[in-house]
């Protein structure tokens, strides 16, 4: 019997290895981009073939941004990474030497083809009357947000809350107090943004979800989406999810050309329009104007101007012993 099984396994192995000859591209991405990239990949393939190339098989992997960066460092052979924040892609340079230090200068707008921000998703009719960040620290309000250690979105959430408190109270100590209070209202930290959305939307836990704007719009679009409303706070952060070619992997696999074309296409008008249709804020001014009505106008701080970039914010807030550890352990 075992011999027959071995034969079967060998056969299946041969089948599995069969179609590997065509060029493949692996895009390792973060949680909420599933819908964006399944649409974009099809469009890119059409564009790529129209230029006289063979079709390329585009593989997708999704998960919490930090976790995904870790997997690429540990040997997941991504040709391109499209993660939630620059800090995670920096790790590819620091820990794995997979990309050069100046990776962010290689593409326009600091390698960020689309942006987003952090908004609130509340239950229909907003029963807890949540209008701004102050309402999140009130007793009895349950806030759903993922774990900043593993999720990029969660780190944007954290910084948006921090930015608000810092502006309002004018001191770091007060900001820390405010954010600590906010996290006392968090009953569960999922590892990724999508996990938190499922916790809030499907499992009906919590009063307010801190979410990527694109993720919040998407939740409204899904089945049962009319049970929720989006609330835009008075101030938030410009979330900039960057993209990069993973040099070490593309050079080994000989996929640099298609990988670079893939990322360039994100900046094309069609790429920008697909991003906007999936509720990401496009960089291209013409496309942005076209979709202007879709996005609430709110005051947005930036990571570079207000936090000194991820190089400074990551160690200060999120590394071991950083601000997040101190406030979360204190509970």
């Amino acid at each position, binding site marked *: 019997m075992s011999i027959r099984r071995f034969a079967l396994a060998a056969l299946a192995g041969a089948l599995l290895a069969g179609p590997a000859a065509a060029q493949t591209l692996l895009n390792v991405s973060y949680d909420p981009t599933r819908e964006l990239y399944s649409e974009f990949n099809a469009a890119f393939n059409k564009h790529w073939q129209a230029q006289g190339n063979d079709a390329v098989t585009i593989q997708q992997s999704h998960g919490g941004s930090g976790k995904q960066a870790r997997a690429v460092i540990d040997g997941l*052979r991504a040709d391109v990474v499209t993660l939630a924040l620059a800090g995670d892609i920096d790790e590819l340079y620091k820990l794995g030497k997979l990309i050069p230090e100046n990776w962010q200068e290689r593409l326009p707008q600091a390698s960020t083809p689309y942006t987003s921000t952090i908004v609130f998703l509340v239950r229909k009719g907003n029963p807890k009357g949540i209008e701004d960040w102050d309402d999140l620290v009130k007793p009895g309000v349950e806030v759903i947000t993922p774990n900043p250690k593993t999720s990029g979105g969660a780190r944007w959430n954290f910084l948006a809350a921090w930015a608000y408190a810092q502006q309002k109270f004018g001191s770091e100590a007060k900001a820390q107090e405010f954010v600590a209070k906010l996290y006392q209202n968090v009953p569960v930290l999922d590892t990724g943004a999508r996990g938190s959305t499922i916790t809030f939307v499907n499992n009906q836990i919590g009063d307010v979800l801190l979410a990527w704007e694109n993720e919040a719009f998407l939740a409204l679009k899904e089945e049962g989406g009319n049970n929720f409303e989006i609330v835009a706070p008075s101030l938030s952060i410009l979330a900039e999810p960057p993209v990069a070619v993973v040099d070490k992997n593309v050079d080994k696999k000989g996929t640099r050309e298609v990988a670079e074309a893939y990322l360039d296409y994100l900046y094309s008008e069609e790429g920008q329009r697909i991003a906007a249709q999936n509720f990401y804020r496009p960089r291209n001014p013409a496309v942005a104007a076209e979709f202007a009505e879709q996005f609430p106008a709110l005051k947005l701080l930036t990571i570079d101007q207000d936090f000194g970039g991820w190089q400074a914010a990551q160690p200060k807030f999120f590394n071991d012993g950083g601000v997040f550890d101190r406030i979360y352990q204190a509970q």
Partner: protein
Amino acid sequence: MSSITLTASASANAARRGNLLGRRLLILGTWLAFMLFLLLPLLVVLGEALKQGLGTFLGAIFEADALSALKLTLLAVGISVPLNLLFGVAAAWCVSKYQFRGKSLLVTLIDLPFSVSPVIAGLVYVLLFGAQGLFGEWLQEHDIQIVFALPGIVLATLFVTLPFVARELIPLMQEQGTQEEEAARLLGAGGWQMFWHVTRPNIQWALIYGVVLCSARAMGEFGAVSVVSGHIRGYTNTLPLHVEILYNEYNHVAAFSVASLLLLLALLILLLKQWSESRINRLKAGAGEE
């Protein structure tokens, strides 16, 4: 005198009636618990899967990514179970037929995967074979991919299913002792002859039982495989991982359809298990009559 017997038997009757009541309550309770915690969730899975009709259900199962997840799962089972079969027989043979130092330690260590969390099992392989791991550099130089590919998934599956075959065989083979094998040897049988004609018939049904349990676990493993999978859609997602992905994409019907496919495979395995178990029992009863 007769009145005393009468009261005695009456009280015995009362006691029996009390026992009967207790027995019925226990049986009822067991059935209720079974239906509430096992049957109901399974029915919910099936109900959700069929919510939008048979067409959607079949569509979700025959979708390309689901099929590739099925293929990968069967492949991982097809490789890891035979290997575990070999290991299980060898380990049980050593433990039951030979005397050596450290034997009880070995028996304890075989159970290690039962007590180690699957997440750790997965991480161990990342630490060993990942790009930053112990053998990472060497593997990269030779262009060998272990974690985030099929070999890693098979290794993780092997780890969590290691004890199943050995655990089934060890007590049986210890009970049977070495006499029959010794007799075969004295009558001039070679090693393989002895194993095939004497040992194998004795352990065959327990072996099948172990393989069945091992396959069930290999098919359903989530934690360890999740760590080493890399989650590449259509390539390194096994069925359980694919179910999670579909669920996270708000694709409930598809998630539950694929889940019921897993369920179907599990039921099939359960039938196999029942069948091999009854064969073991018949064999044991036969041995008792001799």
